[in-house]
């Protein structure tokens, strides 16, 4: 029994010993395997990293390739489709430029005094601008106009050179003009292209009092000063009116056509443009003899005019006042020693295409005496801009004239363009 037990114990212990050894061996194998696994895992990690990096690089290369492709495509595309040069682009490439404006009017009016109808269709103006830039500072600008389509003896029209001057920028924001230019007065005198104002015809106040369109020949300085201020100072040929015309200012425009130069005039203007959309302006003019030394009973003349032009979003407002003081017994006798007028014009621009306006005008070319010689007029109308440079206009006018004078009420229709 003891032997069996001993043998069993021995076997077990040997086995145990063997098992221990086996365990040990197994443990070391397991450990080794674990190490291998760890190592392989590590390798796997780094391989994964490498793969990721490679993937990124592939992505980046792909992106670069797409970008390069895009660039090549863009360049190729651009080569194929050279943009068509418009006239304006070619003009920017050249230094001569031209432009123009024009307006066709239909005036369907009735004289309230006599009941007579006055229906007229008239190509009121056809204008061409020609200009040339000699260099960055020196340029030439001109404006040639045909009024009422047909000019000549006995014909209703006129061919006029309204502007022809050399302009030199002698300093930043300072210029000098020599030649024939528009007098710096009023709202419409310098800017009267059809799409820029309301009403088929130009307002009667500026027409009869300023008198628009008014140009003379001479020398003009203009420029900017302070913050948002602009000035103009000009010395130029003067008006030539006389008793035959009741010393009316508009009749005195010589248009620089062999103009009598015995008496010259000086004009000055200041404007404030400090607030966007707002223009405040005042002009003064003095001429020492408005009859060009042909009438001893008349002499010097002073013009004062001021205006407000405001456009804020849809709302627009224009208001102008102009007054002439004429010296001498001649004008004083008939009341032409004071000629003045004013108007106010609110407007509403619904959108790019539609706008409406109303205007109240008063003017008098014989305001110096108490006789009834004052005109007044209401205008109401609408502008339709087919394009920013093309406009259709419709308005109704209600005039109040002094006794015995033509009083024209009725409709006006017009189309105008500029470029």
């Amino acid at each position, binding site marked *: 029994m003891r032997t069996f037990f001993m043998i069993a114990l021995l076997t077990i212990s040997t086995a145990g010993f063997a098992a221990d050894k086996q365990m040990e061996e197994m443990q070391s194998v397991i450990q080794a395997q674990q190490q291998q696994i760890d190592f392989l895992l590590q390798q796997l990690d780094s391989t994964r990293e490498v793969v990721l990096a490679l993937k990124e690089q592939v992505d980046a290369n792909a992106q670069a390739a797409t970008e390069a492709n895009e660039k090549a495509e863009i*360049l190729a595309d*651009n*080569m194929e489709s*050279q*943009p068509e*040069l418009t006239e304006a*682009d*070619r003009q*920017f*490439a*050249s230094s001569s430029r031209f432009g123009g404006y024009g307006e066709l009017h239909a005036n369907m009016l009735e004289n309230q005094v006599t009941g007579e109808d006055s229906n007229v269709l008239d190509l009121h103006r056809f204008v061409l601008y020609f200009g040339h830039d000699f260099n960055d500072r020196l340029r030439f600008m001109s404006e040639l106009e045909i009024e009422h389509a047909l000019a000549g003896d006995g014909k209703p029209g006129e061919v006029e050179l309204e502007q022809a001057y050399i302009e030199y920028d002698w300093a930043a924001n300072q210029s000098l003009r020599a030649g024939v230019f528009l007098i710096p007065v009023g709202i419409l005198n310098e800017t009267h292209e059809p799409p820029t104002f309301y009403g088929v015809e130009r307002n009667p106040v500026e027409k009869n009092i300023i008198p628009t369109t008014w140009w003379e020949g001479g020398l003009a300085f203009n420029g900017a000063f302070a913050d948002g201020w602009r000035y103009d100072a000009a010395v130029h040929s003067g008006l030539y009116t006389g008793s035959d015309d009741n010393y009316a200012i508009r009749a005195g425009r010589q248009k620089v056509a062999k103009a009598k130069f015995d008496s010259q005039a000086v004009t000055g203007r200041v404007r404030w443009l400090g607030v966007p959309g707002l223009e405040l302006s005042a002009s003064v003019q003095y001429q020492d003899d408005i009859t060009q030394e042909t009438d001893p009973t008349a002499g010097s003349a002073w013009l004062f005019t001021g205006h407000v032009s405001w456009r804020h979003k849809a709302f627009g407002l224009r208001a102008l006042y102009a007054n002439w003081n004429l010296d001498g017994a001649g004008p004083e006798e008939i009341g032409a020693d004071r000629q003045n007028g004013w108007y106010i014009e609110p407007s509403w621009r619904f959108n790019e295409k539609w706008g409406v306006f109303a205007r109240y005008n008063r003017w008098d070319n014989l305001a110096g005496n108490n006789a009834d010689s004052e005109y007044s007029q209401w205008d109401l109308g609408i502008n339709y801009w087919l394009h920013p440079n093309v406009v259709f206009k419709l308005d109704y006018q209600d005039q109040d004239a002094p006794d015995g004078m033509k009083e024209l009420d009725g409709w006006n229709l017009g189309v105008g363009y500029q470029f």
Partner: protein
Amino acid sequence: MTIDKAKRRKAVARWHRRFAIFISIWLILLAVTGLLINHAHDWKLDSESLAKPLQRWVYGIDSNEPDLCEPLTREGIACDQLFARLQLPVGVLLLGVRDLFLLDDSGQLVEKLSVSQFGLASLQAALGEGSDIYLRGSNKTVLTTPDLMGGRTLDSEAATALNGRQWQVAGIIPDTITWERFLLDLHAARFLGPVAKVFNDLMAAFVLILAISGLWLFRVKRNAASRDN
């Protein structure tokens, strides 16, 4: 004054007057050209080239203007401001006084860039050396890359160090003479050829004679005046 002295004074005065008249024209030319040369840089005479017919007549040089315009007229861009063309590692750079035009190898316009982006009011000269592009304005020099990305203003030392290189200058078409050169040649009477040296020496001598005789006459006159009183 003794008779001899008076005769001597009259003779000196006579010769003084003759010399004066003789060299007056040359003296005027000298003064005028000298004045212009003195202000050559202010009045841009050192960058304006002589009118072609004048250049041909005076110097016998006929310059060939390379046609830089073609790639731009295709895009409708005026090229009156162009004055140089730099070959880049990739593409071409056309330089104008106000704008730079980057073209690719096929001559197509890639980008138009105003020189104001580099802080220059106008471009007066350009230099291309490998992948360094130098742009020079009226008072500074900028270094940029062929891609025109970024620009570094050089300090005055670095800028002056580049003065001797082959700059392409605005207003000067290669093989042309500037007004300054022409004025300098006039000033030094170089158009007289080999005689110029002798002529200049002679004129210098006459001026000296004029000055000395003038001073002598002045002294004599003063002494006579003080003696008379």
